[in-house]
């Protein structure tokens, strides 16, 4: 067994080293090709033998033709977000022969991305998403120029990047970046192909195209942060952003080709559950819009995290609602609850999450249910049967990351005020538990 696992380990290391070597050779080749390309720069938009053989199936569509393919070869598209929307969008744009693709993302590939972000392979966990996606795209078509912007888009760099491209694709995952990108596109006069997806639904529209409305015309005020759900909390079925991302590529191609029929002033709603597409008529451009109106108030980029009251990522930041004595470490919980069988553990995640993985003997009561009188009654019954006459009987509350558990402690302290219990939360949640106590526990 140990011999076998050692040789597996060695093989994996050898393969990783070979991949690294392959990567550096590919980089060398790319530099060589770029030098060669710059010498024969005149032929950039003329179709090569490779182009004709590769793109013949779309060139023979009468509305595309050689002219259309040349337009695509000369065009540049910026894709912001190399995730569930950005991966399929980039894949189809690269395949179609758009000459220059820019990728923006600050994040690294995580195992939880792989079910929907199909440009990233499992070997690339921990690698920057931009270089992981660029690698896959170059394998698809090494003639396409891929520019890697491995950074967090913000007010200081957005205009400079956006200005280098003809069309921009919003494949981001948060409200602040969506407003930032909208304003940057309005100020630079670029059309913005905006997509989003969550659970089994997707939405798609094109902003700032041919006098159509911009994001702010439709949504002058950002949504309250507590109403915004991200994919990490709400979940998403991989094929759903797949559908929307592919449609974003299609809209970008139509814009490059100068076609009418672009989804501007309309919103496409996709239901993966019902297999329906619904096309909604949106309002016209608002003449008093703060950014694209006749007398704009926003003429340079602002602080979008402040404007939205939310971070420009889809990662939840740590809450701090409790005093230190109301929180326990994974080690303390382990000693008390697991080893000494003290107290009870209430897991406040949704039942779907609880069913995936949970601590043994923990009780699942989703946060929302803590408002209900019957739930509190049930907890009191459990306490009656367990605690006898103990003083300060421990009630441990936990969740995934240690945010909802704090909210739950505050609620429980009110409703269990007379029960002689000590309500605490597990600091850092099950993530901290997995790191400190049980490495076989999934971190999701």
């Amino acid at each position, binding site marked *: 067994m140990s011999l076998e696992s050692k040789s597996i380990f060695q093989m994996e290391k050898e393969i990783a080293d070979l991949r690294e070597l392959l990567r550096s050779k590919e980089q060398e080749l790319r530099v060589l090709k770029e030098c060669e390309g710059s010498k024969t720069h005149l032929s950039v938009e003329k179709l090569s033998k490779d182009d004709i053989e590769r793109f013949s199936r779309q060139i023979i569509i009468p509305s595309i033709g050689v002219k259309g393919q040349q337009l695509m070869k000369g065009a540049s598209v910026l894709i912001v*977000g190399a*995730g*569930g*929307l*950005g991966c399929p969008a980039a894949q189809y744009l690269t395949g179609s022969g758009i000459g220059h693709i820019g990728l923006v993302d600050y994040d690294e590939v995580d195992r939880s991305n792989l079910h929907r972000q199909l440009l990233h392979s499992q070997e690339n966990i921990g690698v920057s998403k931009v270089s992981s996606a660029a690698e896959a795209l170059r394998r698809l078509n090494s003639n396409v120029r891929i520019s890697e912007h491995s950074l967090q888009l913000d007010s200081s760099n957005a205009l400079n990047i956006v200005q280098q491209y003809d069309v921009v694709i919003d*494949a*981001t*995952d*948060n*409200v602040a970046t*969506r407003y930032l990108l909208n304003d940057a596109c309005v100020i630079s006069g670029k059309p913005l192909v905006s*997509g*989003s*997806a*969550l*659970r089994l*639904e*997707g*939405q798609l529209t094109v902003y700032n195209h041919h006098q159509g409305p911009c994001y702010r015309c*439709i*949504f*002058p*005020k*950002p*949504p*309250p942060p*507590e*109403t*915004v*759900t*991200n*994919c990490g909390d*709400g979940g*998403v079925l991989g094929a759903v*952003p797949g559908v929307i991302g592919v449609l974003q590529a299609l809209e970008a191609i139509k814009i490059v080709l100068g076609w009418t029929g672009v989804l501007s002033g309309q*919103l496409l*709603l996709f*239901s993966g559950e019902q297999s329906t597409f*619904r*096309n*909604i*008529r*949106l*309002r016209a451009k608002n003449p008093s819009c703060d950014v694209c109106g006749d007398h704009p108030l926003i003429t340079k980029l602002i602080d979008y995290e402040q404007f939205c009251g939310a971070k420009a990522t*889809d990662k939840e930041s740590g809450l701090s609602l409790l005093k230190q004595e109301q929180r326990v470490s994974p080690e303390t919980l382990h000693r008390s609850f697991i080893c000494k069988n003290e107290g009870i553990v209430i897991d406040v995640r949704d039942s779907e999450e609880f069913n995936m993985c949970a601590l043994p003997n923990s009780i699942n009561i989703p946060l*929302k249910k803590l408002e209900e009188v019957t739930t509190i009654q049930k907890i009191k019954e459990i306490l009656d049967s367990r605690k006898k006459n103990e003083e300060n009987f421990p009630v441990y509350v936990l969740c995934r990351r240690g945010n909802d558990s704090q909210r739950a402690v505050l609620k429980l302290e009110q409703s269990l005020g007379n029960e002689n219990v000590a309500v605490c939360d597990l600091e850092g949640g099950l993530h901290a538990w997995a790191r400190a106590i049980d490495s076989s526990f999934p971190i999701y």
Partner: protein
Amino acid sequence: MSQQQGLEITLEFGGGAELLFGNLKKHQVTLPACEGKWTIRSLLTWMKDNLLKERPELFIQGETVRPGILVLVNDADWELLGQLDYEIEAKDNILFISTLHGG
């Protein structure tokens, strides 16, 4: 003209707004007969009292919907139809869609 009988309409929810309405995406409702005409303004009040299951502040703020919810009447943005003052007609389909931001 006052409406003698109730007004039958379809209410639909999407993008997560359905979670506040018993997780049901489509509701066939009959608005009770009233003096004057039903508008989206009076519909919102009626929905708050009769249909909203939880956390009304995540749907309604003041007399209108919260930022980030689009109201669509028969597949058109309510801004094109007079917003809160739109007079509802029988068989109207009114869709409340919460915008998505994930990707």
